[in-house]
């Protein structure tokens, strides 16, 4: 690693920092573009903090982390640690950090902890646990294995081809989850939730303003909960499932694109137009709850046009 640190700075640093410098590990100043590679363990924990700009992470088959950061006149890029854990962050020398664009390459099995404020986050080709949080910016993950937590306030969140326990939180945009294997908790306020190609026995998806669409497995003994205040809830029900369905809407409608069991009871009463429907398929061992206060609830078969168009 090439370091460029003024002497005056060096004498102000702590002995611990100086020791790190002497052994060739950061902190490091990046007045020019940074491009450095650090050896790490295959399952190293990589922390990345960037106040504004972007963070792009991809996996490779080397036991090393490569860090490429665009030029910044005012801010420093600090890289600390090696082997088991590496921390990468932007530190401003003049108030609020300027936007920086990070391109980080990590071992495929590394676990990632990524944070930003006005930051776009894109991760691909990894097979470890992932935590990524931003305020203003999209978050996208392609891959991931383990505990996965993705959050954005103003941006949409997309996760694809992930395995593990998935938690996805948005606020002002939608959430898209495709080809996921594992328990899912997805929640936003003003946006849609699309769950497609899901293989899970525990799914919880809720929004306030927006539709919720689910296409995936309904496993025996599983729990599936879908809710929206204003939007339509569409749930795909494969044939020959064993599930108890409880659907309720206050001012919306309930419909099914296929014939329901004879025991389905549809009630409407009270001051509004509340509709509650309960019935079971097969031995009813899975539990499906669908709620929409003033939107529609639609059951459909996998591949139905009503799902595809969403």
């Amino acid at each position: 690693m090439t370091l460029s640190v003024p002497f005056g700075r060096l004498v102000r640093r702590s002995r611990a920092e100086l020791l790190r410098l002497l052994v060739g590990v950061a902190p490091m100043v990046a007045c020019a573009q940074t491009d450095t590679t650090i050896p790490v363990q295959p399952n190293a924990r990589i922390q990345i903090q960037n106040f504004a700009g972007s963070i792009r992470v991809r996996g490779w088959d080397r036991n090393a982390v490569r860090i490429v950061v665009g030029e910044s006149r005012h801010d420093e890029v600090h890289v600390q640690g090696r082997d088991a854990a590496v921390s990468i962050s932007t530190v401003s020398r003049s108030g609020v950090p300027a936007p920086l664009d990070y391109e980080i390459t990590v071992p495929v099995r590394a676990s990632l902890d990524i944070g930003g404020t006005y930051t776009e986050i894109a991760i691909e080709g990894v097979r470890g646990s992932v935590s990524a949080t931003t305020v203003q910016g999209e978050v996208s993950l392609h891959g991931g294995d383990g505990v996965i937590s993705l959050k954005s306030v103003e941006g949409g969140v997309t996760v694809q081809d992930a395995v593990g326990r998935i938690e996805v939180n948005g606020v002002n945009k939608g959430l898209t989850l495709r080809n996921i294997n594992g328990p899912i908790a997805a929640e936003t306020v003003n946006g849609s939730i699309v769950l497609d190609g899901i293989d899970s026995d525990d799914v919880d998806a809720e929004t306030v303003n927006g539709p919720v669409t689910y296409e995936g497995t309904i496993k025996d003994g599983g729990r599936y909960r879908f809710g929206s205040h204003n939007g339509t809830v569409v749930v795909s029900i494969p044939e020959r499932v064993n599930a108890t369905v409880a659907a309720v809407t206050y001012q919306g409608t309930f419909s099914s694109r296929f014939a329901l069991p004879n025991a389905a009871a549809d009630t409407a009463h009270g001051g509004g137009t509340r509709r509650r429907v309960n019935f079971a398929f097969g031995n009813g061992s899975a539990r499906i709850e669908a709620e929409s206060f003033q939107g529609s609830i639609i059951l459909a078969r996998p591949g139905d046009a009503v799902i595809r168009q969403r």
Partner: protein
Amino acid sequence: MTDSWTDRLSEYVDGELDATTRAALEAHLASCASCRATRDELQRVVDRARGMGYREPANDLWGAIETSITAHPPRAGRRLVTVSWARLAAAAAIVAMLAGGFAWTLATRRTLLVVTPASSRDTLVTVLRQPSPTGAATTVASYRDAAADLQRAFDANRSTLRPETMRVIEENLRAIDLAIAQTDSALRRDPGSAYLNEYLAATMQRKLKLLRRAVEITSARS
């Protein structure tokens, strides 16, 4: 669906009918095999759903409740309030929610419920300890207090985020407020609805979650 009573069977199974309607329906069931069969099938569905168990909150508040009850038994001057099962469920949901995320709020509010089942089938007599001057009288009030506290904390650090981000968060908080207001309005028209009570509690919980997240974001940058 063969007669007008079949549309009321789901409410019957859920225990949502008033006593008069319930008695009339039971009289009808005695003479209608079709309705009895539908009721039995619905009952099986409901039993199966109940048998799936209760989803525990992340943190159990009962220990704190029990400690509080033991340490401070109800005294003279307590207030009697009748609460329906549905409203109690809503309150319990809020308590569970508070336990899950707002320990600091609970630490300053010691109002808790002492519940004694009454003889009536569908009501409980709930004894509330006399609230302290600054405490909340009910868990719904605790929600309001928690929301107000979080809102103040959020407002205190609003300068740490860009105005457009603050505006987005506030718009989303208002969207949840609107959902709460709509649910509350529906509850006024349909006060016995367990669904609406539970939904109101869940929507309040959502509001607090967003507020807590907003406070975390602004605090981290203050």
